[in-house]
């Protein structure tokens, strides 16, 4: 049974990675057609680094991802502290509010924000308010719940006496947060920030509705390729991004593995 399951899992993983392989192979293809491999070349990569437009789009995506995830992380962490101290109806109300963007389909979130911005445009008598700021607002909005849902469990796990112990030893509430609580919930904050960052970098649907002609992110630009043929250097770019994320994840994984094996050893030594 276990063996069958293992083979099945391998097949599913191959299924998940087939498109990646197709993209990676296409990035080394001499020809323009993704489906026909016409010989190996590194030309696409050379092309990529000469293409200022493409790099600028990537830069736009990164700028939005960094700023939005930073703001969402700070705002969300502070909010989590507040929600953590709430009880009863108030808490469920705030959590329901948090769950709206989570359960709402992206397209509805995108449409609703687009309409809000259109409406504000009408009120302010501006032709279009869409651009960097609307994109940033949208990204912060859909990232916030991820931060909160990652930080809240860490707060719940934390021994509530720790805060009191810090106060007892003379910390002001603010000092207690920075000297004690922050350390305890850091893993949650980091994974929340990481999720916010990748969601933002990856987002197409919501960005598509709130982006203006002035400031476009990479995924939105790729969507416009439906109308024109896609350039193989885009494959090259995503192959590089894929490799970069792979390396990042492997490093994190190794660090984590080392950390937990250390903990395990300490536990055993203690016994």
């Amino acid at each position, binding site marked *: 049974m276990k063996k069958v399951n293992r083979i099945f899992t391998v097949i599913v993983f191959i299924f*998940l990675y087939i*498109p990646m392989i197709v993209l990676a192979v*296409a990035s080394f293809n001499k020809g323009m057609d993704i489906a026909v491999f016409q010989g190996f070349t590194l030309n696409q990569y050379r092309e990529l680094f000469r293409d200022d437009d493409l790099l600028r789009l990537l830069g736009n995506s990164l700028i939005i991802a960094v700023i939005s995830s930073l703001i969402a992380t700070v705002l969300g962490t502070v909010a989590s502290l507040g929600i953590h101290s709430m009880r009863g109806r108030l808490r469920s109300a705030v959590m329901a509010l948090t*769950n709206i963007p989570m359960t709402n389909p992206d397209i509805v979130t995108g449409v609703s924000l687009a309409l809000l911005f259109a*409406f504000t445009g009408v009120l302010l008598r501006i032709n279009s308010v869409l651009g960097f700021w609307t994109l940033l607002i949208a990204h912060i909005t859909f990232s916030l719940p991820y931060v909160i849902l*990652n930080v809240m469990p860490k707060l719940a796990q934390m021994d509530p006496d720790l805060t009191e112990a810090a106060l007892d030893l003379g910390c002001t509430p603010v000092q207690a947060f920075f000297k004690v609580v922050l350390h305890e919930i850091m893993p949650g904050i980091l994974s929340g920030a990481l999720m916010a960052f990748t969601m933002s970098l990856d987002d197409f649907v919501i960005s598509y509705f709130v982006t203006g002609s002035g400031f476009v992110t990479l995924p939105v630009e790729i969507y416009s390729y439906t109308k024109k043929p896609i350039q193989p250097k885009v494959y090259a770019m995503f192959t590089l991004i894929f490799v970069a994320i792979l390396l990042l994840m492997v490093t994190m994984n190794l660090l984590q593995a080392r950390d937990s094996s250390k903990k395990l050893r300490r536990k055993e030594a203690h016994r």
Partner: protein
Amino acid sequence: MKRKWLSGPYVLWMVLFTLIPLGVVVYYALTDSVTGAFTLSNLANFANYWPIFLRSIWLSIFATLICLLIGYPVAYFIAHCKPSAQRLLQMLIMLPMCISFLLRTLAWVALLEDTGIINNFLTSIGLSPLPLIRNNGAVILGMVYNYLPYMILPLFTVIMKIDPRLIEAAEDLGCNSRQVFSKVVLPLSVPGIVSGITMVFVPAVSTFYISQKLGSPGTILIGDVIESQFKAAYNPNLGAALSLVLMVLIFICVWIMNRFTNEDDEESMVTL
């Protein structure tokens, strides 16, 4: 000292950028696109799109069920690996999600096209090409591919948390391995199943790119219709009305699903 006020800015933000926008959607849905007067015609128009709604629902229910059938054994397998292997496999599940889903869908187009990679291969070994693209099957495949990780991860989290002593207890009380699964493991994975189904069904039913690339004009989904109201036909009022219906529909589905679990929705599975 009221700590709960710390969430003030957040609540304000969420009210401004999620609650009020939903209000604006309702406002647009109930007003005429030209005169701005109150009207129910946008909502009434929804009847014309009923077949498309139904198709979206059917295709995504199919895709969700396939995800569950594929995802459960995989999640079960990962949950029973060593912790180091677990982390690695979990990471490998998430990794594809970091690449734009548009490109991954385009890669499937390259694979499935009439003159695509698979058909080229088939012809090269002397077989006749297959109609792999521009049908419902291709759309379902696209959905399953894109949203499968959203099924596996919550299932994995829940299965991993099942106390192994419970399984031993069940064996001790005379369950064979099949009974252990059906009487203990499966019931305890219900929260993961529910959250996985929600996390696959919601984006699948509202998608608008997959169907454009992998489907045919005859298989457009409600997401495509909404998108075109904003980007092509420019009738945001109709688009708003359709979004509203879609949203209500999904909220009803999620609400029904959540009745299957009495868990707090707060700690749902959306954590790394």
